[in-house]
C-alpha cells in the first residue's frame, strides 16, 4: 500500500542495517548523506557510520531527516508519528527527503486497532500516507508541494 501512494520502501533485518540502507537511498537520490535524526532511543543507539548525523530539531536548511514511526497501518500504507521529546514534529514536514524507520512488529491492520496503542494524546498524531502532493494546478498531481518530495520507509524485520 505504501508504494501505491508513491512512497518507496525497503526491508532490512535489524536496526543496525538502517544506516547503510539510508546512505544507499540518499546517494541514489543524489543527496549528500547528511541527516537530521529524531532523538529516539532506537535511533540514537545505532552506529551511523558513513553518514553525517545530528540529533536535534529539523530546520529549513536540513535536506533530509530520519524519523522513527510509532506504528504503521497496513490498510492504507500509513505511517503513524506521535510527537514527544523523542519525536519532533517538524522532521516530517520541513526536509525534502524523509526516511522513516518502521518496525514490522509495530504494524497494525487498520486504524481502529491503532488507537488503543496510543494512550493520552500528545500535541500531534501524524498519519502520513505518501509524500506531499498537490493537484491545485489544473487537477494534475505534482509531488513535493510543501512537505517532503519523497518518503522512504525502511521496514525493520527483527523484533528486538
Amino acid at each position, binding site marked *: 500500500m505504501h508504494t501505491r501512494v508513491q512512497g518507496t520502501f525497503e526491508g532490512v533485518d535489524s536496526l543496525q542495517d538502517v544506516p547503510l540502507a539510508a546512505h544507499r537511498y540518499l546517494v541514489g537520490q543524489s543527496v549528500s548523506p547528511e541527516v537530521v535524526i529524531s532523538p529516539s532511543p532506537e535511533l540514537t543507539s545505532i552506529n551511523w557510520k558513513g553518514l553525517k548525523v545530528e540529533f536535534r530539531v529539523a530546520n529549513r536548511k536540513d535536506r533530509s531527516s530520519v524519523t522513527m514511526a510509532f506504528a504503521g497501518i497496513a490498510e492504507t500504507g500509513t505511517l503513524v508519528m506521535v510527537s514527544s521529546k523523542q519525536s519532533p514534529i*517538524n522532521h516530517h514536514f520541513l526536509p525534502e527527503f524523509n526516511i522513516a524507520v518502521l518496525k514490522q512488529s509495530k504494524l497494525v491492520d487498520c486504524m481502529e486497532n491503532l*488507537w488503543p496503542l496510543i494512550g493520552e494524546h500528545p500535541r*500531534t498524531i501524524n498519519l502520513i500516507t505518501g509524500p506531499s502532493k498537490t493537484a491545485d494546478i489544473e487537477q494534475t498531481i*505534482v509531488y513535493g*508541494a510543501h*512537505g517532503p518530495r519523497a518518503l522512504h520507509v525502511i521496514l525493520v524485520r527483527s523484533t528486538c
Partner: protein
Amino acid sequence: MQVQSKNFRKTAKKALLDADLRVAMGRAEGGFVDTRKLVVEELDNFQEYREFARDTKNHVLAHLDYYLTKFESNVQASGGQVHWASNGEEVNRIVVDICKRPEIKKITKGKSMVSEEFALNAGLEAADFQVIETDLGEYIIQLANETPSHIIAPAVHKTKQAVTDLFDEYHREAGYPRVVERLDIVNQARQVLRDHFCTADVGITGGNFLIADTGSIALITNEGNGDLTANLPKIHIVVTSIEKVIPDMQALGGFLRLLGRSATGQIMSVYTTLFNGPKRIDDLDGPEEFHVVLVDNGRSEILGTQFQDILRCIKCGACMNHCPVYTNIGGHAYGWVYPGPMGSVLTPLMVGQKNAPDLPYACTLNGRCKTVCPVMIPLPDLLRKHRNNLVEMGESKRFQRWGMWVWAQVARNPRLYFLMTSLYVRKLNVLARLLLVFRRGSFKHIPMLGAWTSTRDFPVPSTATFQGQWKKRKRSE
C-alpha cells in the same frame, strides 16, 4: 464574504460564456469522478460506512450540546483554550484579540472554508496583520484577489497560464523567474511560502473533525501546508464550526475511509493530523498556545428544521464534482462561499432565502449528488423543499405559479392529461410538416421554449403519445 447569490441567473450566464473558465473546467472535469469511482468500488462495504456516517452524525446532531461541551472540557484538559462565536463578527474579534500583541505581525493560514463565511482575512488585514494563505490553490486566489470556486480545489477555475502570469506579476520583484511548467510553478510556491512558514507569528487552520472524547482536532491535507502552519509559529488557532464534532476516535476511521475516497479518490489523504493542545513541556517543537474558535454562524438555527440533514456535510465536494450545473458554470456563479448542490441547499439557509432565490433551481434533479454523498444527504429533496418554501413565501414568479397550477390540474386528471398531450403531439407534428422540418426530425425554434431551443434542437415527437401507443398495442394483442 459578500453575498452575490441574488444575481445567479446573470452570473451563471456569464460563466457559460467565459472561455478561460470553460478551458479550466474542461481540464478538471471527470478527474475526481473517475478516481472516486475506482476507490469506492474497491471497498466492499462503502455503503455500510455511509450508513454508519449518516447515523453517527444524526446522533451527534441530536445531542450536539453534550458533545460540544465534552469536546470543550477535553481541549481545556490538554492545555488548549476554547472560544465560542455565534457569528462572523465575533470570530473576527476573537481572533484579532488573540493576535493583538506587539510582536505579532505575520499570520499564515491553512485552507478554511468556514473562515470565508465572514472574510476572516479581511478582518485581520484591517487590524494590520499580514495574512498569507498557504494552500497552493488558496495562495493563487489570494494573489488574484478572488474567492474559492470549489471547496477542496479552490483554484480549479484557473488555467496554468493564468497562474504563470500571476506568479510572474507578484514574484518577479523578489527575483524569481517566470515559470511555465507545473513542477516549476509548484516549486516556486514552495520556496516563497517556505519563507513565510518560518517567519510567521501565528498559524490559523481549519478542522475537519472535532473528537469530543479526546479534545483533538483532525485536519486533513495533501500538501502539508496545514502542519507547517500549525506547528512552526508560537500560536496555533483553529477556526472551525460546531457541526464537525464526532464522538470518539473509533468513529474517525469510518469518516476517513469516506472522506478521502469521496473528495479526491484517495484511499487516504497524505496528511491526517490530530492536534491536541499546545506543545508539551519537554516537546522539542510545536506551538506554545493552542486556541479553538467554535463557530455557529447560523448553524444552530438549521438544527431541528426540515433542513437538518445538511449539517451532516463533511465538505468533500463530491456533490459538486458530479453536478452537471456546477461542472459547467463553476463555483463563482453561485455567489457565496459554498457552491454546487450542498451550497444551493446551505446558502439560502445561511444568507436568507430571499438573497438566494435562484439557487434551489440550479439543479436538474438528476440525483447524482445524492447517490455519491458519503453522509447520505438527500440533496435534491432538500432543494425541492426550498422550492416549496419559496412558492409558499410568494417568492416565485406569477407565470410560474400559474403554469404549475395548470400543470397540476392536468396531471391529476388522466383523461385530460391524455387529451392534452395527444393534442400537443399532433399539433407539433402538423407544425413540423408545415415548417418542412419533419424529415430533419427536429425543430430549431419553438414558441415559448426559446430558452431551450436557443442552444439545442427540439426533436419532432412521435405521431402518438406513449399512452396512445400503449393502448394501440394492447388492442392489437
